[in-house]
Structures are given as structure tokens and as C-alpha cells.
């Protein structure tokens, strides 16, 4: 089990990480979600030992890692753009970690064959890595990180440089692989969907501090604050005063269970419905086809412009529509 306690990393006078605490139970996958520059990569580099922490402790099953050099931690790291050794074949890349452990040659060969099979690259040991596509490189990098059976596998935006279709397929495969082999992992990404798909636990990182942590469902249902809500992709965020179960804004009223005070509310786009009979009126100012649904933007007079999900028969641009507010989330 990995436990990181109040980790702080300063580089050139800037605090890249500031008091970050995390723990990952054996066999769990923790997704670290944050925009670029939030300190995700530095977190992985520090856990792996490539970066010395300024303050805080790193422990594995209670053992202090601060005196353990990089090569003796027994962790695996899959780099953002893979860092495959260009002068070695696929097989030699995958075998590298095993060779460092001085395993017998026969065992190395068998293990390389096994992990290449896991990632769907069976029998390609002797190919050069220079002519591989992005997706193939990603698989080899994953195999290389997995081969020495690391206690902890860290993945730094492993799908970042791949196209969308490939990414959506690989993320599911990756999740299956991690679960099947009970691999303890920390997965870093800036993409919410990727994080939600792969994670048992989720941690949102903002400017080097933990903005929120919990299960993906918890974080999605109840973002900790407005920044987190916006980062997760919510755009309908409004302030309202609550009086006896009713939230009141100058332009609308809706029901809530929040206590009597000023609150910030998230109105999820699927919680709003177009209803000609609703009291709240607005003008359609935007309309985008999203495959399974339409995303319609409705400008409320003297109020915000709200994103609304409409399954079919989306109103046309300029139309006057009524909006009914269903489920809301109080922050």
C-alpha cells in the first residue's frame, strides 16, 4: 500500500506540489486528474524517486522510501511519450527491467512473451521500435513497465498522444488489464472520461494541491467547489439564496434540499428539460449536434446562458423555449 503524506515539492522557488496526501490500497487504481501544470507529472516523478520531495513522506507498506534510490523501489513508470529505448528491439525494451533483476535468460524470454501477449503484441520481440505507430508504442511501453512485476505501476497520460477513437478503445482494455492482474496503479490524466473509466478512486489536483478526492461517482455527483465543477465540464453554475427548501435567483426559482443560506448550484445539462409550459423562458442562441443528443444553449433574459441536453426535436436557433429545472447539485 502506498501512502503519501503532506508531500511538498519546490522547484526554482515555485511550489509545484503543496501538501499532497494520497493513499492507494493494493490492487486499486487511483486516477489523478488535473489540468496541465497542476503538478501531476511531478507527483509521479516524486513517487518514483526521480524527484526529491522538499517536505513530506512517502511510504510503501509503512517503509519509508526517502532513502531508497530510484532503481530499488520496484515501481514502474510509463512515461508520457513512452521513452522507449530507440537502439533496442521491442523484446530488449521489455526485457530491460528483468535483466536489471538478473533473472535467468529463459525466464526473461518467457516473461517478455507473456506480457507482450497481454498487450496484444504477441511474437513481435525482434521488431525495431522505430517504425511502430503511436498505439503500438503505447503497448510496448506498457509491457516494459509491467514486465518486472512492479509493486506499483504509474502511468503518465499514457493515452495522451493518441487519437480519440484509439484512446476510447485502449482505455477500456487498460482498465481490464489492471483489474485482471490486480495491479496497484496511479494513473495521471487531464481527461475526465479517461479518469472516470479507469479509476477506483479519483483525486483532482489543482495548482499542486488536492482539490477533491473520492470515488468517481462521488466526485461527479458532488464536485467540491466551483473550480472542480467547471474542470469536470459543468458549465451551468449559478448562485442562489435558499429559503425553506427553495432556491431563489432574480430570474428563477427551484427546489433544493440545501439549508437556508447563499449557495452555489450546478445545474447538470441533463437535469434541464425543454417544456413549453415552464415559467422560465429563454431564447435559443446555440445548437450543436452531439451524436446521441443535441446540446442547446438557452439565453435567459437578465440571467445566465444555460446548456441543455435535448434528446430529439431540438428547438431551432432563435426560438423562444420554456425550461424546467430538475435535479440540481448544491456545492
Amino acid at each position, binding site marked *: 500500500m502506498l501512502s503519501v503524506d503532506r508531500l511538498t515539492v519546490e522547484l526554482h522557488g515555485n511550489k509545484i506540489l503543496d501538501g499532497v496526501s494520497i493513499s492507494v490500497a493494493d490492487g486499486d487504481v487511483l486516477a489523478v486528474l488535473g489540468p496541465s501544470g497542476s503538478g501531476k507529472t511531478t507527483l509521479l516523478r516524486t513517487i518514483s*524517486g526521480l524527484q526529491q520531495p522538499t517536505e513530506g513522506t512517502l511510504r510503501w507498506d509503512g517503509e519509508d522510501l526517502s532513502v531508497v534510490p530510484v*532503481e530499488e*523501489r520496484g515501481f514502474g513508470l510509463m512515461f508520457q511519450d513512452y521513452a522507449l529505448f530507440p537502439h533496442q528491439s521491442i523484446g530488449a525494451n521489455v526485457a*530491460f527491467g528483468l535483466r*536489471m533483476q538478473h533473472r535467468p535468460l529463459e525466464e526473461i524470454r518467457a516473461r517478455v512473451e507473456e506480457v507482450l501477449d497481454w498487450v496484444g503484441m504477441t511474437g513481435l520481440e525482434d521488431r525495431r521500435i522505430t517504425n511502430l505507430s503511436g498505439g503500438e508504442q503505447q503497448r510496448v511501453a506498457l509491457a516494459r513497465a509491467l514486465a518486472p512485476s512492479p509493486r506499483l505501476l504509474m502511468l503518465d497520460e499514457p493515452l495522451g498522444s493518441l487519437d480519440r477513437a484509439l484512446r476510447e478503445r485502449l482505455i477500456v482494455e487498460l482498465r481490464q488489464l489492471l483489474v485482471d492482474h490486480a495491479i496497484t496503479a496511479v494513473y495521471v490524466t487531464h481527461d475526465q472520461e479517461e479518469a472516470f473509466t479507469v479509476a477506483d478512486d479519483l483525486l483532482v489536483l489543482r495548482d499542486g494541491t488536492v482539490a477533491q478526492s473520492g470515488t468517481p461517482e462521488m466526485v461527479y455527483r458532488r464536485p467540491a467547489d466551483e473550480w472542480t465543477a467547471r474542470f469536470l465540464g459543468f458549465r451551468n453554475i449559478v448562485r442562489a439564496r435558499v429559503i425553506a427548501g427553495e432556491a431563489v435567483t432574480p430570474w428563477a426559482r427551484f427546489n433544493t434540499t440545501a439549508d437556508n443560506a447563499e449557495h452555489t448550484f450546478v445545474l447538470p445539462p441533463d437535469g434541464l428539460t425543454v417544456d413549453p409550459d415552464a415559467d422560465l423562458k429563454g431564447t435559443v442562441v446555440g445548437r450543436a449536434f452531439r451524436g446521441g443528443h443535441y446540446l442547446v444553449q438557452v439565453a435567459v433574459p437578465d440571467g445566465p446562458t444555460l446548456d441543455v441536453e435535448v434528446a430529439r426535436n431540438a428547438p431551432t436557433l432563435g426560438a423562444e423555449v420554456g425550461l424546467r429545472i430538475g435535479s440540481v447539485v448544491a456545492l
Partner: protein
Amino acid sequence: MGRRDAAVTNATRAQRVDGAGRLLRSLAVGIPLVFLIVVFLYPLASILITGLSGDARPLAAFGDVFAKPSLRGVAWFTLWQAIASTLLTLVLAMPAAYVFARYEFPGRSLLRAAVTIPFVLPTLVVGSAFLAVLGPNGALGIDLSSTIWAILLAHVFYNYAVIVRTVGGLWANLDPRLEEAARILGAGRWTAFRTITLPLLRPAIAAASSIVFLFTFTSFGVILVLGNLEFRTIEVEIWRQTMSFLNLPVAAALSVLQLVAVSLILLAYSRYQERRALEQSLAPASSTSRKPQNAREWWVVGGTLSFTAIFLGTPLAILAERSLRFGGEWSLAAYTSLGDGADSPLFVPATRAIGNSLGFALAAMAIALVVGILASTVIAYKRGAVSTWFDLLLMLPLGTSAVTIGFGFLVAFDSPIDLRTSPILIPLAHSLIAIPFVVRTVVPVMRTIRSRLREAARVLGASPLRAWREVDLPLIARSGLVAAGFAFAISLGEFGATAFLVRPDRPTLPVAIFRLLGRPGELNFGRAMALSTILMVLTAVSIMAIERFRVGDTGEF
């Protein structure tokens, strides 16, 4: 004007432009070709003929070279000192290559430029500087002159920059995450370096080593000054056989053997260059270096830089210091006596040598620019075989030692027309040595313009001629200035070829330094140091001028 008239005018103009263009093109091919045949190929052929026909028995001179123990010794010494110099340079310069590639520290770009200074210094200046440090009455108090150590250290000093720039250049573009990936997979610091970094650096190490090997294999000025003729490379032996024994056939045989050896080295070098151009996971240099992070890294950086500064700075500083001392005190005597004519061992006032050198350098620069730029247009703008062959032909002088060129001139321009005492031979020889540098500086610039910028100008509405004038000319002019600076600096410091062609009453700076070093007396030594200092300053100024005109990173030097 009617439309038809306009069409006719356009047609005649096109014809005229075409005619002028054809003339220009034939001149561009013709002038460099004739120049190379007369000034390079003909002298080489003369050497070969001299070597083959010296004695009654054909090939007798070649037999001598292999039979005589003293000549075999020269060949053996040439080889082993070049290997030793190359290995020593690698060992001493690799840390600096690493530090400059991987760390950011204040003054990095300035220091990296400073490291290059010894490489562009004339060999005679390097020789004098090491004599000032390690010679009799040297600053260190131990006399290492006439030992192999002075020679090896001078060679390391001279070639330090080759390793730092070539190996460091690739190292700076090597993704540090490769080594980090190895560390995480369980490799220690040294194992990660040995299994990942070193193999990836191998092409650059091989290329740099072959260059250093080539330079030290054909070392002349340094060995002549520091070796006292007790240590002789093939170059020195060619000079000695010619000037002291007038044994031209043996000198010619040695030249041919050296040419063969050098060609083999160059062949190896170009093989490595090709392989280096192949794939590799490279990262932009800006992303691979960082500030030192802990005490250990600060020690590595500080220690390496201190060693570099002391090793490269001391000889030059002591050279200047020695030139300012006379009779154990600070004095300008060495400088003020440079104008003396009567008692000067040079037969003429030493100041005359400065004027001679500047004059020769200007002439050599002019010749090198005209021939070099004409040749560059052929190489850059023509496609296919003509360009490739021209490129190869023009690189040949680079692989030919200066001594061979000087010696070739001596045997070639003897009869039917005896030009050996003509002052034109020196700038011709110098320009021959400088032309490959001019071509290598100008061609890459011409090629980059060709592909993109001129097309942009055309799309924006410029005619072909207008596009050339607006885009090509200004950029070529700048690289032309850089090339001019190189040619000037090369000519100023050239000694190997000059040593064969110089007239006693018309010494150049390096020749004057060499003669003064061979005379007894503190004043003569001081004068040599003073002239070396002046030559060092002149070279540094022309090289610094180059840096100002450089267009980005284009050009290969």
C-alpha cells in the same frame, strides 16, 4: 502597348535572361573546376609523379619508407600519438560535454562559445602557449617540452571543443527520460549510462573521435614547436625531408601514404555521419537541461567547469603574461622591439610579418569567397549527380593536410613556370584550405532558402528574380560574411602549407613565431610570445565577428 507587343517583349526578355543565366551557370561550374584542377589536382599528381620517379628504380622512395627504421618509427609515432591524443581528449572532455548538455547555469552560452576558442587558434599559438606553460622556464616550473606529455596535452587543449560540441550536441538532444526509464526499471546510475546513454551517443562519439584522430594524425605546428624534431609525425617528416634533406621522392612517398590513411579515416567518418542522420528519439535541447538541483549536482557542474576554465584558460593567460615580461619584470620590451630590423633574426622587422599576414589573409579570403560561393550555387541549386560530385570534389582539400598542399605546390609550380617564389602561392594555398569551410557555411543557408522562403515570396507576388534579390541575397550575404571571417582566420593562422612556400624576407605571423622560437635569447622568446598574443587576438576578433553575423544555427561549423 498592345497585348501582342507585351508578349513579344516578354519573350525577348526571357531569351536575354536565359542567355545571361547560361553564361552565369557555366562560369559557376567552370571557375571552381579550373581552380581545383590547377591548384589542387595538379599538385597532387605532381607529388605522385615525384614519388614514383625519384630514383633510378621506380617505387624506390616507397621502399625506403617501409625499409628505414627511422621512417617506420615516424609512421608508428604518428599513429600511436593520434590514438593516445584522441582517447585522452575523450576522457577529459566528456564531463564537459555532459555538463553543457544537461545543466543550465549562468553564463552557459558564453562559456560554450569560449570553449571553442582553442579550436580556432593557430597551431603555432597553441604550441607557443604550451611552451610558455610547460617549457623550460615555464610557468609550472616543470619542463615537459620535448616529452610526449606536452604534445598530448596541447592536442587535448586544441580538440576539447570537438568533443564538447559534437558529443554534447547530440547529448543535449537525447531525451533524459530514456535514462530515467532505465533507472525506474532497476538500473543504477552507471548501468543506465552504460546501457542507454552511451550506445545512443556512440555515433557522435565515433564521429568526433575520427575528427580528433584526423587532426592529431596530421598534426604539424604543435609537434614542430613542442617536439623539437625528436618527435616527428609524418607531416613533420615531409617538411624535414623537403627542407633539410631536399629528399623530394621520400617526402612525396610519405605524402601519398598519408593521403591514403586520411582518406580511410574520412571514409569511416562519413559512414558514422550517415548513421547519425538515422532515426533516434530526440528531444529539443531546451527541454533536456535544467538547473543543478542538489549539492552533488552543483559539485559536478562546478568541478567540471573549473577544470575546463583552468585547462583552457591557463595556457592562453600565461602566453599573454609571458609576452609582457622581460628580465623578470613587467615590460613592453617584447612588443616595442618588434619593429627592430637590424638585429632581428627574421632579416626584417617582426612588424612586417603582421602586415604580410593581413595582406595574404585578405587575398586568400577574396579568392576563397569567389570560388566558394560560385561552387556553392552549383551544389545548392543543381540537382543530382553534378551537385553530389561537385560537393565531394570541393571537400577533398579538407581531407588533405596543409603540409601536403604546401609540398604539392612546391613540386608542381617548379617547372615549366617557376612560381615558387611568387607571393601569390601563399594566398592560393590558404584559399584552397578555406574553400571547404566557405562551401559548408553557405550551402546549408542556400538550401534552406530554396525550399521555403522563396516560394513564400513568389506566392506573395514577387517575380523569380525579385524573390532571389529580396530573400536569397540578404541571407546569403550574411552567411558570406561568416564564410569570409572563417577564410580570413584560417589564412591568418595557417602554418603547414606556408612553411613550404614562404620567402625568408616575407614571413607571415606563424612563420615569424616559429623562427623566433628557434632562436636563443630571452628577447626572441618574448617576441615570439608577443607575436603569438597578437595572432591570438586577431583570430579571436575575426571569429567573434563571425558569431555576430551567424544566421541562427545554419551552417555546419
